[in-house]
């Protein structure tokens, strides 16, 4: 597989960086079943440039939830043009490129590991400002006019709860805590906004590239959709993205107040904290359902079976978080 990718990238190189003398390096970074991420380097006269390839080699593997890679690329271009820190999308894959569906973007140096962003002294100066930066970035994202972007689904708040209820009902193992969270969610659905906004859908510590001075890029638009923008404000506060720094709800680096204040100051709608709390519960259950799903449909012969066992057993973390949230909300 790696050789085919190398060959295809070598052929594509002159169109990505004029004057290119060849492919200097190429390795796969990560990726699930449907999407792959590759880091590659093109050598040119006197310099070299690094790029990221994000692709789905087999389009049929695309998840129902995903917006699609073409949509992701279009959104990153839109966001970048509006001042959201974003890698530059330099090429959208065409069938003739022989790489499947996807796009090539510029490499942005920095840290994405949440654990390091929350703890490493290298980010000590960035941390106090990160929640405010996230608020300003989210306000800019929610203001984007995505009317011209194909492939974005509209999701109502009720539909988001229903989708989780369906997933929970499909599990072989019964989880009383998930049922309790679903009951609470069904009884607290906030009214949908009069005009749906562009929702990133996975805006959290772990999907941001951070440098010592702050956020350098927003990644992973795979779950973007149209709907209630408060979902993004709740998702970034889910305990699983605090990486142990549980007293700083926003990504393990800031307070909700700092996030909301910056969001409103940057032109976002005034924040209804109770509605955001609904999305924090929804987000916590969503992550729990993803974890539990790993165990429920376990293929013991799969190469990543052990990893999936362990992720499956992390669902209990979200059960404790849900119980804490529901007790606070009571």
């Amino acid at each position: 597989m790696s050789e085919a990718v190398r060959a295809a990238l070598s052929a594509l190189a002159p169109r990505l960086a004029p004057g290119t003398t060849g492919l200097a390096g190429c390795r796969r970074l990560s990726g699930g079943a449907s999407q792959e991420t590759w880091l590659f380097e093109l050598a040119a006269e006197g310099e070299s440039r690094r790029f990221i390839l994000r692709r789905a080699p087999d389009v049929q593997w695309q998840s129902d939830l995903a917006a699609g890679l073409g949509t992701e690329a279009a959104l990153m271009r839109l966001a970048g043009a509006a001042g959201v820190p974003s890698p530059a999308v330099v090429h959208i894959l065409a069938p003739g490129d022989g790489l499947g569906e996807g796009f090539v973007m510029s490499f942005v140096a920095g840290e994405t590991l949440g654990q390091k962003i929350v703890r490493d002294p290298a980010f000590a100066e960035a941390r106090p400002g990160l929640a405010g930066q996230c608020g300003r970035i989210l306000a800019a994202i929610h203001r984007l006019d995505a009317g011209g972007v194909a492939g974005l689904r509209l999701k109502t708040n009720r539909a988001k709860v229903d989708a989780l209820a369906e997933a929970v009902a499909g599990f072989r193992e019964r989880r009383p805590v998930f049922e309790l969270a679903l009951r609470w969610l069904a009884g607290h659905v906030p009214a949908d906004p009069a005009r749906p906004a562009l929702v990133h859908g996975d805006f959290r510590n772990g999907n941001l590239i951070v440098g010592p001075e702050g956020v350098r890029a927003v990644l992973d638009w795979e779950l973007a959709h149209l709907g209630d923008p408060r979902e993004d404000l709740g998702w970034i506060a889910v305990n699983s993205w605090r990486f142990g720094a549980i007293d700083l709800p926003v990504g393990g680096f800031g307070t909700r107040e700092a996030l909301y204040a910056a969001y409103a100051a940057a032109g976002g709608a005034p924040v209804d904290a109770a509605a955001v709390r609904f999305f924090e519960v929804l987000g916590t259950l969503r992550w729990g359902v993803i974890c539990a799903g790993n165990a429920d449909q376990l293929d013991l012969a799969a190469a990543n079976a052990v990893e999936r066992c362990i992720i499956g057993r992390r669902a209990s973390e979200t059960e404790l978080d849900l119980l804490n949230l529901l007790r606070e909300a009571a």
Partner: protein
Amino acid sequence: MQDMPKPDAILAAVIDFLRDRALPEVSGRTAFDLRVSINALELVARQIALTPASDAAEHARLTALLGQDGTIEALNARLADQIRAGALTPASPGLIAHLIETTREKLAVDQPKYAAYRRLDEKNQGRA
């Protein structure tokens, strides 16, 4: 009856070998997978050590809460059904306390380093 050594002793020996002798010998993706595998074996070791007591306690709580007996799986399914139907709510006596204790017991096996678990554990010890 099976002969000695017992499963917990065998597991401990395997974990020690993998962590102290095998892990330093490998690198890259294999090292990552091996570390995940060691974590998985440690989880199993904790489960063997802790669940006989926690399952018995959970079963006793479920029996009291639901007023009926059965296997722990059947009782949990019954509890889930009653919550889904709204017959048991957070206001129902003993429900939240039962769920917190059951979740605490799960995390003692699954992820005792989880910060929210450690905080709950500290609170419990402070109360004891």
